[in-house]
């Protein structure tokens, strides 16, 4: 930890030096050879999209594969993609007519067999795809014609379209049956706007070339840039150095401290953009970690009043972040801001603590795995009202496992909803009595179940609203803020960020 802090200080200094000394822009490789090189920090566990839970894997999958539907990031509408049209037959059945004349990168023709094979294979628990939540609503898929399929759902699941437009790419059945997940990881084959030319797991580099035969009717449009290079650089300071030197053309999650220096360079642009990722403070309301003070709603509400979220957002977060009040991202279907809002009010926090029988304050432990500075800012606010909190800062998996095991009193975590624009991807995930649910409120769970399964949008909205209001009123979680990222990229590049944390390189172009 000390080393990384020292590195941060060291790099901050040398980056400033470099920004000052860097000569004018040279002929950068990106536009010159029509190659967009982008860098991500996390190594890919697998290139098979169904065996990868990381964000870089999700980004990559959108370039290589298509889904049956496509969600327009501007309007939110579900547009036909590999499917030409779809119809809800009833609450548990969707009929889809598929597009003709599409070929996979290996020449295999796309038809109903590919859809049937892919969705049946990934929804079979025996095949153990990584994100079971993405597929466990599918009962089975049957072929109704060479270019038509029927999808049977286990239960009514209105968010099915969101999933069909998101984390469910369609694979070539013959190729996948032959090579399996391992082979797909070594050489991914899809119908998408880019085809993989070379995948090197050793360096975490994937070289993709434009799919010249990409189907013209695709809502993604024909890709404009000739080559994409996905590069894994695990050190964020090295990413900045590569940006400065022109070794890469695009990077994100730039530290706010470095924005001014990078933005001052003549060959780079920096823009900020809000994402769907929200942070939250979870509390052990069910008392699984012991008979602690957090079982009392007044204590949880005191915590909510004690933390100055707006000040943290204003002073420590990137531009574009905002305080959130409900346990969802505002643009998700079913999310409402019409819930109890806890303003910063230390006096009220102290009064609530006294009312709960803790006039002299309490001692708690906070588990966290990221944004130590933000966690420490919250700790200072809590200390000011008499809540002495010790920070247990570990790795993500350790924090998550501790929460699931019911051993965490209070935890600071984040959730990006897998870019699914539906409350079922966040609120239902955390408040339906699973191991992730630290409130165990059966009424909330029932409302969420109603929202998740009703085919009527108005019923869904009403059920979700009731659940969200109750969660806020009881302060089971304190929703904190949305995350905003800074994107830095070549001035030659026309790039537009989107809130779902998926950079759409196939829509980008050189100026």
């Amino acid at each position: 930890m000390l080393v990384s802090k020292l590195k941060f200080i060291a790099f901050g200094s040398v980056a400033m030096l470099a920004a000052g000394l860097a000569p004018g822009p040279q002929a950068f490789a990106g536009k010159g050879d029509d190659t967009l090189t982008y860098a991500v920090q996390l190594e890919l566990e697998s290139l098979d999209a169904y065996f990868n839970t990381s964000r870089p894997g999700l980004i990559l999958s959108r370039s290589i594969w298509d889904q049956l539907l496509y969600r327009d990031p501007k309007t939110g509408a579900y547009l036909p993609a590999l499917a030409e049209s779809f119809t809800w037959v009833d609450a548990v059945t969707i009929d889809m007519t598929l597009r003709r004349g599409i070929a996979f990168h290996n020449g295999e023709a796309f038809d109903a067999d590919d859809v049937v094979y892919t969705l049946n294979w990934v929804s079979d628990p025996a095949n153990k795809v990584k994100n079971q939540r993405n597929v466990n609503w599918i009962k089975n898929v049957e072929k109704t014609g060479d270019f038509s399929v029927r999808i049977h759902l286990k239960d009514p699941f209105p968010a099915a379209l969101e999933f069909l437009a998101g984390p469910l790419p369609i694979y070539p059945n013959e190729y996948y049956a032959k090579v399996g997940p391992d082979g797909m990881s070594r050489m991914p084959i899809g119908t998408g706007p880019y085809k993989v030319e070379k995948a090197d797991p050793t360096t975490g580099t994937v070289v993709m070339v434009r799919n010249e035969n990409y189907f013209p009717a695709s809502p993604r449009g024909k890709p404009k840039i000739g080559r994409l290079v996905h590069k894994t650089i695990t050190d964020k300071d090295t990413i900045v150095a590569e940006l400065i030197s022109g070794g890469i053309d695009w990077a994100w999650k730039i530290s706010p401290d470095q924005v001014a220096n990078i933005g001052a360079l003549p060959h780079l642009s920096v823009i900020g953009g809000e994402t769907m990722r929200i942070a939250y403070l979870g509390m052990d309301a069910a008392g699984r970690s012991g008979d602690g003070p957090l079982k009392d709603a007044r204590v949880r509400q005191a915590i909510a009043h004690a933390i100055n979220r707006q000040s943290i957002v204003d002073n420590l977060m990137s531009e574009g972040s905002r305080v959130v009040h409900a346990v969802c991202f505002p643009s998700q279907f079913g999310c409402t801001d019409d819930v109890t809002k806890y303003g910063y009010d230390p006096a009220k926090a102290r009064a609530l603590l006294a009312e709960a029988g803790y006039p002299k304050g309490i001692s708690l432990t906070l588990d966290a795995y990221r944004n130590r500075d933000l966690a420490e800012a919250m700790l200072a606010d809590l200390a000011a009202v008499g809540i002495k909190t010790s920070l247990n800062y570990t790795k993500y998996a350790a924090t998550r496992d501790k929460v699931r095991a019911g051993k965490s009193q209070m935890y600071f975590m984040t959730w990006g909803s897998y870019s699914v624009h539906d409350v079922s991807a966040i609120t239902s995930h955390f408040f339906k009595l699973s191991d992730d649910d630290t409130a165990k409120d059966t009424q909330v769970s029932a409302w969420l179940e109603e929202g998740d399964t009703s085919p009527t949008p108005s019923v869904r909205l009403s059920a979700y609203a009731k659940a969200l209001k109750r969660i806020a009123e009881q302060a089971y979680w304190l929703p904190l803020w949305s995350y905003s990222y800074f994107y830095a990229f070549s001035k030659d590049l026309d790039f537009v960020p989107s809130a779902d944390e998926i950079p759409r390189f196939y829509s980008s172009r050189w100026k």
Partner: protein
Amino acid sequence: MGYFLKRLGLALLVALVVSVISFGALRISGDIATAIAGEGASSEDIEFTRKQHGLDRPLPIQYLDWLSHALQGDLGTSLYFRVPVAELIGDRLPISLALGCLALIFAVSLAVPLGVVAALKPNSIVDRLALWLAVVGQAMPTFWFALLMIVVFGAWLRWLPISGNESWKNFIMPAIALGYYATPAIMRLTRAGMIEVLGLDYIRTARAMGLRSGTVLFKHALRNAVIPVVSLTAVQFGFMLGGSIVIESIFSLHGAGHLAWISISRSDLPVVQGVVLVLALIYILLTLLADLLNAWLDPRLRIE
């Protein structure tokens, strides 16, 4: 032959102890069944996984089972990458070895001549300069030096690539950063060894017999002076392999050190265990080779 067998037996014993420690330490540090069962696994799933992988058996039995597989080159499967650990290490180790070798070549080719020159004229300006270089190398944190090089040669002058391991050029800055840290120790040992040897009678005799100074220096003095340097170099190479994590991370070289680091953070225990074992075995092998080389350079060691 006796000396060789004795050293080999000792090395095998150390390797066995290392395997026991790496197996035991990692089993104690976390529940491997929970890690294999993965995210969201229920208690039943975890118990099933425990039985399926034989993790409910006594530790000594598990160790023997693991050792017999390891001896056949089977180090298990990565929980994160879902590929055999041996394959993963096989992919990454050449990068770490290349980096270590280049760093060592840089360190030795800088340190030994500097040490010799410094020893020839102790307390002269050359000696002071060499000492200054050594102090700087030891005092400056590796990551700082690496970042300075990135800024100057990567971002500013744009002479060298900053990250990746696509070409030999990618290894220049990492090798210098890693090698420079080892330079002072080798340089000082060479200097001390040379000063001691140059003062011995046989060197004076050699000079009195009219041998050329180059012959005296390199054929007679250096050969004896470098004996401790050989051991130190082997040890430094071991440190470089294990200690290249920071450098591999900064320059985005996807080597074995970096693999171990990310595997620790992901609780990918089979990979951590595999990397620890392989690096330890290399270290033991290097030490054995250094012992044998020393014995070849100095026959008195063989008699002992």
